């Protein structure tokens, strides 16, 4: 079954995260890396949750990853795929899998980032199966 598009709620945007959402508007998936311990964390924060350093820096992620887990929400008016995606950069983030037949969505499958407009015209990173 192919997917019908649903309406995406707006993200909450604050001082710590506005760069992430600006990046999304420009078609970029931005991540936060800590210059002290070298680790990428998610969701992006001013202070590294691994080592507590405030020397954190934005960078553009590859946008490639694999499905860590998923669940197809069938009891919604427009069914959708909830997922956790593990990026090549090592972190796992919540997202939706779009543009894909439900039957093709499997754990471990390669996905790439794409973007969807939210109801308030923000841009939201989502993923689709790689061809």
């Amino acid at each position, binding site marked *: 079954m192919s997917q019908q598009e649903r309406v995406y709620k707006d993200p909450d945007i604050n001082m710590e*995260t506005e760069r992430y959402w600006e990046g999304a508007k420009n078609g970029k998936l931005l991540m936060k890396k800590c210059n002290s311990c070298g680790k990428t964390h998610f969701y992006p924060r001013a202070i590294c949750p691994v080592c507590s350093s405030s020397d954190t820096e934005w960078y553009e992620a590859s946008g490639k990853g694999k499905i860590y887990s998923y669940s197809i929400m069938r009891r919604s008016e427009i069914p959708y795929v909830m997922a*956790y995606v593990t990026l090549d950069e090592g972190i796992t983030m919540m997202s939706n899998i779009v543009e894909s037949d439900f039957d093709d969505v499997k754990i471990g499958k390669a996905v790439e980032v794409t973007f969807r407009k939210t109801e308030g015209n923000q841009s939201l990173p989502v993923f689709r199966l790689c061809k």
Partner: protein
Amino acid sequence: MSRMSKAYIAGIYEHPTRKAVDKTIPQLHAEVAIGALKDAGLTKDDVDGYFCDGDAPGLGGMSMAEYMGLNITYTDTTETGGSSYVVHVGHAVEAIAAGKCNVALITLAGRPRAEGLTTLGARDRGGELPERGFEIPYAPVITNMYGMAAMRHMYEYGTTSEQLAWIKVAASHHAQHNEHAMLRDVVTVEDVVNSPMISDPLHRLDCCVISDGGGALIVVSPEIAKSLGDRCVKVLGHGEAVKHLNGGNFDLTYTGAAKSGPIAFAEANVKPADIDYASIYDSFTITVLETIEDLGFCEKGQGGKFVSDGNLISGVGKLPFNTDGGGLCNNHPSNRGGMTKVIEAVRQLRGEAHPRVQVPDCTLALAHGTGGQISTRTGAGTVILGRNDA
């Protein structure tokens, strides 16, 4: 052998309602408090410590203490979702051991059913939640979040829908004897896997009920317990934990029970094999399966095999669980099941469970609560309880 206990559970009460259209939430809190005090043989004027969750009306416990006319010198509003009340038992024991209070009242009440709450729609708690922007737009709801835990567990360990179904089957066998249970029909594995898919791989019958009501517990000092008689139950050990997404580096195949369980078992100085009865939080079948593994009743990944073939059914299997029917069939008041987990464990240790599900010579019991969502942020609370002569 008589084990040391720093405090005892002296009173329990589970509200019989499952839909409270004509009652307020404060009224339900007061009704369960009165019920538990009566069960203990105490009055509200004996209470000097009050515990409730962050969901109770008002700021902390203050409004409810005022409504019920409590005069308290100790309060705790630890909020870890549905595990709160198990955690409260542990905190009450420590407060009593420290001499800060002698009679602790713990209450839970809510009416999601009367208020028409469904589990659809994103759970938006508002405020300055740091994760909100990165979750709410994707429409996480309780069923798809637990669905992802189940899907990953299946992927890593080969767990099947049929194995998960056995958990519901066992709960239904127990619920048939509970006159207050919402779902009293005995179901089969086929019934579960043939029920409508809600969010893959969880079917409707993998999910708990939504119910109104609540419950209360009274925890007292050893001196007071002595005066109240042998229906008091020992609290032998308590453990708690918070598990979260850890900066994007996490594993959905285990829960906070992997930490809270060993802490509780160590304090009680008992092993999983010593437990005669277990109350395991059952928001979904997968919650039970992962928790059973995490608590050490079987190896990680072997939960599916362990729960199969009636192994959780009282009188049939090795680990009788949720003999009241649990959240899957009986009651999940205010979408928070930790309270009823402790209550049924106390019934078992008193020999007051329904005769058809009573575990013979039940001496040691475990109650485990899970709060929040096991696929994001989750609280865990484990208590090990012992019969008065344990």
